[in-house]
């Protein structure tokens, strides 16, 4: 069953003669429980595609169904609620709220869902335990390393058990060791719980654990492959 179905996605920026056509008619289907990597050179449109699929941006043209919900034409508050209840995000540069502790960062989406403080706190602690940040609950983001901050971001993304996690170059700001740890974490998450993950990366090394790699070039999908085939 496809959890994401996108047809003929176009995304243009600017107007008049200064218009930039970034996505030029993309069709993509992602199955429930699939771990997909979107790869491509800088400017290929991979992040732009992820923003369309993750309801952070709206395409100029095309259709997107996520978990059988048409997200095109949704009002802003509906999109916000949809993101809260269905999606999880891991951004390139952690994107944590600096005033909140690790636990509180993880709790935020849970509280917004109406979960009680005690329950949200318990769930947040469990998520932080899962990403190996036991004993760092009360640390502010500024007191954590880049890798630890990204793990908090992952804990925040998984705490609400979203249907899909979108990760936008989650290793871009990390050293190779921390980067590998984050990829391992996402891989474990996918293997253990069958979590659907859509990850944008430009590192082939990090994409090799995915179920499918989608290569983009100049706003179009040029190639799709299963990295497990012919591996051995």
């Amino acid at each position: 069953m496809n959890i994401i179905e996108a047809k003929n996605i176009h995304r243009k920026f600017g107007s008049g003669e200064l218009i930039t056509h970034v996505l030029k008619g993309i069709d993509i289907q992602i199955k429930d429980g699939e771990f997909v990597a979107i790869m491509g050179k800088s400017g290929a449109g991979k992040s732009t595609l992820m923003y369309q699929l993750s309801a952070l941006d709206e395409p100029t043209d095309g259709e997107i169904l996520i978990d059988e919900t048409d997200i095109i034409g949704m009002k802003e508050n509906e999109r916000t609620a949809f993101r809260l209840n269905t999606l999880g995000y891991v951004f390139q540069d952690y994107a944590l709220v600096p005033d909140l502790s690790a636990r509180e960062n993880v709790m935020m989406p849970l509280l917004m869902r109406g979960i009680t403080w005690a329950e949200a706190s318990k769930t947040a602690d469990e998520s932080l335990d899962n990403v190996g940040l036991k004993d760092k609950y009360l640390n502010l983001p500024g007191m954590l390393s880049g890798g630890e901050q990204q793990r908090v971001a992952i804990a925040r993304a998984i705490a609400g058990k979203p249907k899909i996690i979108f990760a936008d170059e989650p290793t871009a700001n990390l050293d190779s060791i921390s980067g590998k740890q984050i990829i391992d974490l996402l891989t474990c998450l996918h293997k253990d719980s069958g979590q659907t993950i859509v990850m944008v990366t430009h590192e082939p090394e990090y994409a090799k654990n995915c179920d499918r790699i989608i290569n983009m070039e100049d706003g179009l999908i040029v190639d799709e492959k299963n990295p497990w085939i012919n591996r051995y």
Partner: protein
Amino acid sequence: MLSIKIGLFLGFRQIQRSNPWTTILIIFVMMLTFLNLIAVSGILVGLIEGAERAVRENSLGDIIISPLDEEDHILETVSIIRELEAYPEISAYSVRYNGNATLEANYKERRDLSGERDTAAVIINGINPKQEDEMSGLSTLLRDGEYLRDDEEGYILVGAYYLKEYAENFGDIFDTIDAKTGDTVRLSIGDISKEFTIKGIVESKVDEINLATFIPEREFRRLFSRQDRNAEQIVIRTATPEINAEVSKNLKNDGMSDYAKIQTYEEGLPKFLIDIKKTFNVLGTFIGSIGIVVASITIFIIVFINAMSRRRHIGILKGIGIKRSAIEIAYVIQAAFYALLGSFLGAVVTYAILIPYFDKNPIQFPFSDGILSADPEVTFWKFVILFIITLIAGFVPAWMIVRQNTLNSILGRK
């Protein structure tokens, strides 16, 4: 409700983690704004209230009995005085007789009979010195000399504005004589004259005192041939000002209003004084409102810069599903915190420091001892205005930033 809960949480965390010096500075600005709003109008109104207080304490008391409109004197004054004695709520009263006369000084030394005489047209008050002192504290207003005694005759107290030495600042506004304490002066009422020794000089912020002379009532009635004992004014001091209206009503119910006009101090207050008070209040509020505008702009800029610098975090919060209203509330909470704490400190400074200070050390104005007047109810409503404007000043910039495109905020795009 959920947005308020999340907004409160985010707002308090932002305050908690913000730079303490910046927070202190903002609260200090809010405190000054509150003080500006309360103190400026408070001092302007306090000028008039100080004058009112002085008139009440040194001249008119709490209840004033005066002649009916068609009469020159209070009818049945003796009966009224007898009635007043029976009122336990009345702590003091003074019966005043008054008339116009001419006061002349240096007439014995005058050699040139064709030259100008040293005279002044004066108002003479006939009083019972002891009763008057209990009522108005006249003896405390002596600038020089001694107070009158009941058992002596031939002495007069003269208001400072009738004496050249004290009234020279006023030029030729008032008739003045060149005399001092201990000098002999001649009081003339028509063809009747009598010599008096100036026993003391009285001076007050109340012009009615400075422009009056006082002699014992016995001598007054003799000089003015007032054998009926009907006075021009009876002023009453009550035990507490709160019961003035009730005492006034009781006096009227006792039938005194058939013989005299009975008014509380407030009822007898001249309209121009009420109008000045209102005008000063409006003026003070206007000046204070400039402070509110400045404070609201300050809050606007602070919240705008704060929200602008956190634009990306705002985008992320929206991205992970936090409602716009929750984020806006977080900034409104911050503005509310600054306004509440600043106003609270401003109120503490006003009521615990400034008002007691100005009560003890009034600002010296020619016509009053200026106090700081800050009616708690008026202060409360001014606080409410300041608070609401601050909330708006906090909300608008947050709204401007939060409404921006989520992805643009996250990516730092314009």
